[in-house]
């Protein structure tokens, strides 16, 4: 996929993967957890009032559960859905790397990342078009910020 000039920014942004995730998001519905370490975070996008509540359960250094609820635009909904797909079941270290790559993608102004990072990101590479719209980066990051914070809470829980 090249950094558009043929296709409009709009089509580059709302790729089919994103539309699909937005329509049928994964991981939606908070899961009751009975784990030694769990954490929750509530994030609000103050420009539009969108919110996400996200819960993680840790099993050692593995993310054994990630669920969420909330409302928002297709970008924020699809993004947290993809996040669920990418990190549930993964080790924290791996999730951190994925998150770094996603943040980098958001800062790339619409340019694709190198292959290694794209491999890490999987479906999330579809968000490349968002990086061209500073106002929408917040939407795409909302779930990821909640995830980061929930992990911090879970670790507090652990100690």
């Amino acid at each position: 996929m090249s950094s558009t000039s043929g296709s409009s920014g709009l089509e580059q942004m709302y790729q089919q993967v994103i539309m699909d995730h937005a329509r049928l998001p994964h991981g939606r519905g908070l899961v009751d957890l009975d784990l030694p370490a769990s954490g929750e975070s509530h994030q609000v996008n103050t420009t539009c009032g969108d919110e996400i509540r996200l819960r993680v359960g840790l099993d050692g250094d593995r993310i054994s559960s990630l669920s969420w609820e909330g409302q928002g635009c297709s970008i924020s909904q699809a993004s947290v859905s993809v996040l669920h797909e990418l990190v549930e079941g993964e080790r924290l270290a791996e999730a951190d790397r994925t998150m770094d790559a996603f943040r980098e993608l958001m800062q790339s102004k619409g340019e694709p990342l190198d292959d290694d990072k794209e491999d890490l990101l999987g479906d999330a590479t579809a968000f490349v078009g968002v990086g061209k719209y500073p106002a929408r980066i917040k939407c795409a990051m909302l779930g990821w910020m909640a995830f980061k914070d929930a992990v911090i809470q879970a670790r507090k829980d652990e100690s």
Partner: protein
Amino acid sequence: MLLPDLRDDFPLLARTVRNGKPLVYLDSGATSQKPRVVLDAEREFYELHNAAVQRGAHLLAEEATALFEGARADVATLVGASQDEIVWAENATAALNLVASGIGNASAGIGGAEAERFRIGPGDEICVTETEHHANLVPWQALATRTGATLRWIPVDDDGRMVLDSLESHVNERTKVLAFTHVSNITGLISPVAALVARAKAVGALTVLDGCQSVPHLPVDVAALDVDFMALSAHKMLGPTGIGALYGRKELLDALPPSIFGGGAVKTVTMEETSWLEAPMRFEAGTQPVAQAIGMGAAARYLMEIGMDRVEAHEREIATILRGGVAEIPGVRLLGPVGDADSRDVIAIAAVAVDGVHTHDVGQVLDDAGVAVRVGHHCGQPLHRRFGLTGSTRASAHVYTTPDDARAFVEALATVPAFFGVRA
């Protein structure tokens, strides 16, 4: 169109946006574009006359003071006030806070005997409405917290119209302040000012009008409206950012204590205490936004040269296309009254909710088409909540808006449901 070549006065309108598309600017409710005369007035001030006003005795200071006070007179003329009833403020928000904090300060013992008439406390009431912009709600909440007074509000119906059935209970003998907007920045509805002012007068409450969305679009005369205070913003009426104004009845302004304290606003200062100048100076502490005031004056003159009657007529023409067009798109909900878009009680604003599509996504499609609108809650969370929404997509016009602009919005909006695969 208002004037065929009026658009040439606005340099920014010549811009292109995404992929070279011509700009369709429909975000004037947030901030308007500026005609060249406004930019020139500011620049000429800086290049030829820049100096501190009202203090210096040198030639530049004299020239700057004359321009600054001349601008005040122009703004006063636009709204039917006298010159010393216009106080400069950073924006309308600051103007509204000036009144609320002044009352708060009076209630905290600042301002001496003359300020006593403004004191409020537990048992007293402040009344607003459910359609207020945050700027005319949050300062009153804070005042209630500060003084122990109770905040009440007039509700709105499903169309966003204020419900006046219980006006006598909402505005009663305990009510000290009634603050309300002249025109809603979401529904575009013009408020029933006469009824509200009459009731406030009957109970002796001060009236504070938010003129942000009326002064730029309609003829407004504070004497005829008979309100005590009115706030307005330059940047929404073709003027610069960084300046707005408060109208206040002179005898009220002379008694209200200031809430920003400093130089230029004071008569005598000792280490122990301070006496203040008369209005408007008592409220203009520190070095004034001189260039901006001059720019606002130029904007007021520009509007008066067009004629506010013609501005209003143009407004109705665009409102009809915008609101009428939107109302016909399946799956799109128009906030505010539907079907009487050409009646006399709305300005050219159309805030819409597209079923199943988030306002950010709607805005993205419009932006891609070169149509600049506002998405989100437009600083009106309570009204959106009343409508069962968290946000909407708002198109808003000004003198330079063409019928084609309005149609471009309607057309681009009509493509949204299909783009996101939702069908009415």
